[in-house]
């Protein structure tokens, strides 16, 4: 396992190197006009050239790439060029990331808690009332596009009033815990439905297995069978995704953060790509891809922890 982990971690360095180089080159393929935003037509050719020179975009691409790597090796992610000119990328991320991480982690916790409980309830009552009720919820959340139901949640729930004061404010503010509830709820509804849907599916598939019959014949109580056998088996496939989703909470949620004006990371990558702030794009892709790759790796490890029958490293005779 240790050898395997070291190999995967070393491999992840190579992957990040490839990803970041590709993204660097792809960004250089985008049209030059993109660097000027709406002001393109107002600038004279000399002004345009000056701006491009300032960004270091007039050098041949291999010189640009070399400069990028040498500053990266010194631990410098660079300064934003367009999004917030001359502000270090690290400072921007430090400003924004805590909001996204806090909301993301809280939402994962809520989703796991309610989603798994809901899925277990559904599987244990398959075809009966609770199964049908929660299936209706899961279907509804999956059916209505998030872009739509999130709007309605904000529209109607902010209208609830006690006396004359609205219970939930329309926008997020840091000092007011009541303004945290709606974003958290909106963020968790999809997660709850997802975990419930898959927990139900995996549990239903497991409940028909022979080992459940054996456990029952052995005289184990229903709860013991559920917790010690069925749930543990059912959770394995979901465990793979857990580390990725925890690590990638930093990327935030684009719909919700813009709806409630949360100053988080949601949509930042899309925004800086569209405005062609190369330095920001490279830094964000570097961070996200490192976390994504580790997420996949840690997911594999977690899966093997939950189910010791899973062997990750190569063994004699295995293909």
């Amino acid at each position: 396992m240790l050898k395997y982990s070291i190999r995967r971690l070393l491999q992840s360095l190579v992957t990040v190197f490839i990803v970041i180089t590709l993204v660097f080159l792809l960004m250089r393929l985008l049209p030059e006009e993109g660097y000027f935003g709406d002001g393109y037509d107002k600038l004279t050719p000399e002004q345009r050239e000056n701006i491009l020179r300032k960004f270091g975009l007039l050098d041949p691409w291999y010189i640009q790439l070399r400069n990028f790597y040498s500053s990266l090796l010194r631990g410098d992610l660079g300064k934003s060029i367009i999004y917030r000119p001359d502000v270090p990328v690290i400072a921007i991320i430090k400003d924004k990331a805590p909001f996204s991480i806090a909301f993301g982690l809280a939402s994962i916790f809520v989703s796991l808690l309610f989603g798994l409980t809901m899925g277990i309830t559904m599987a244990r009552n398959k075809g009966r009332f609770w199964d049908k009720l929660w299936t209706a919820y899961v279907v509804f959340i999956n059916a209505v596009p998030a872009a739509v139901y999130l709007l309605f949640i904000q529209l109607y729930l902010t209208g609830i009033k006690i006396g004359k004061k609205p219970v939930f404010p329309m926008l997020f503010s840091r000092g007011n815990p009541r303004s945290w509830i709606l974003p958290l709820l909106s963020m968790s509804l999809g997660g709850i439905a997802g975990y419930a849907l898959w927990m139900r599916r995996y549990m239903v598939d497991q409940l028909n297995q022979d080992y459940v019959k054996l456990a029952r014949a052995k005289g184990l109580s229903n709860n013991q069978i559920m917790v010690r056998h069925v749930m543990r088996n059912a959770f394995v496939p979901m465990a793979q995704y857990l580390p990725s989703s925890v690590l990638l909470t930093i990327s935030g949620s684009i719909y919700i953060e813009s709806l409630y004006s949360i100053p988080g990371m949601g949509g930042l990558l899309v925004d800086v790509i569209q405005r062609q702030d190369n330095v920001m794009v490279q830094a964000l892709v570097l961070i996200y891809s490192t976390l994504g790759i580790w997420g996949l790796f840690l997911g594999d490890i977690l899966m093997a922890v939950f189910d010791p029958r899973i062997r990750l490293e190569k063994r004699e005779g295995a293909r």
Partner: protein
Amino acid sequence: MSQKELQVIQAIEDDLFTFAEYDPQAAERVGYSDYSYWGSTLKIFFKNKTVIFFLVLMASLILFATIQPYLPGQKSPTKIHTDPVTGRPLQNQKPSSEFWFGTNVIGQDLWARIWSGTRTSLLIAIIVGIWEVFFGIFIGAIWGYVRQLDAFMTEAYNVINNIPTTILLMLLAYILRPSFKTMVIAMCATGWLGMARFVRNQIVIIRDREYNLASRCLGTPTTRIITKNLLPYLVSVIVMRIALSIPGTIGWEVFLTYIGLGLPIDTPSLGNLLNEGRQVMMAPNLRYQLIFPAVVLSVITISFYVLGNAFADASDPRNHY
């Protein structure tokens, strides 16, 4: 031998040990079974009344979306209607006998736009969905099972997965004109990743189970292990994942439109329509522009979800009889 055992033996009647007459029919009964896996899966699937309902609903929706432009009295989805007297565009008309679903902010007929959009979105979803299913399952199965390829596949997955789709879409839009085609290319380029990872995880879980070990010891070729041992075991979860992938693709298209990288406005799609609807939804009397496309999308999604779930339930052979 004790007295009791002796008694038991003596109690066995001798005629139990004579030869039975050969009966070919009885021999058939034990030796032959007409059980077919997909046959019984489909039988259980179609027994479900909800399934029939949603199948009919789905089929009529697709059929109607296909033939709608050829029906008499249909309007063009992109024509801007104007008032014959004043020559002004008929903006934001309420649903009426002339415009069944009303008109949008620039005066286009919402009824025609919704069906045209449904055609576009369903077509994208079906193309991307089929690609995702075949390519994703193929890659996922090999990635999960063949360990020599694990390092390479993981590398490839991580590289492709971590290059933002936004960059690809912007490059494509720069090289080609944004259109139905660029959308499908971009979505196919990255859409299979989720399915591949999903199938790979499932296979990693079961690849070293004893029955696969036994197959390996007997020298079964890899292709046969994948198609006969691994994939049949995963039918229910894979079907569930497929059922979610078509609504997922439509939702993705909505998202791409939201960040400004969707189809051009002159190609109506459910993504475009929902986005137009979102922009006017703060005005309660214009909210129908959001609700109508959302309802059509929900009907599609609910049908796929219910059918997928029912098929997944039916595909478990332990429930067959």
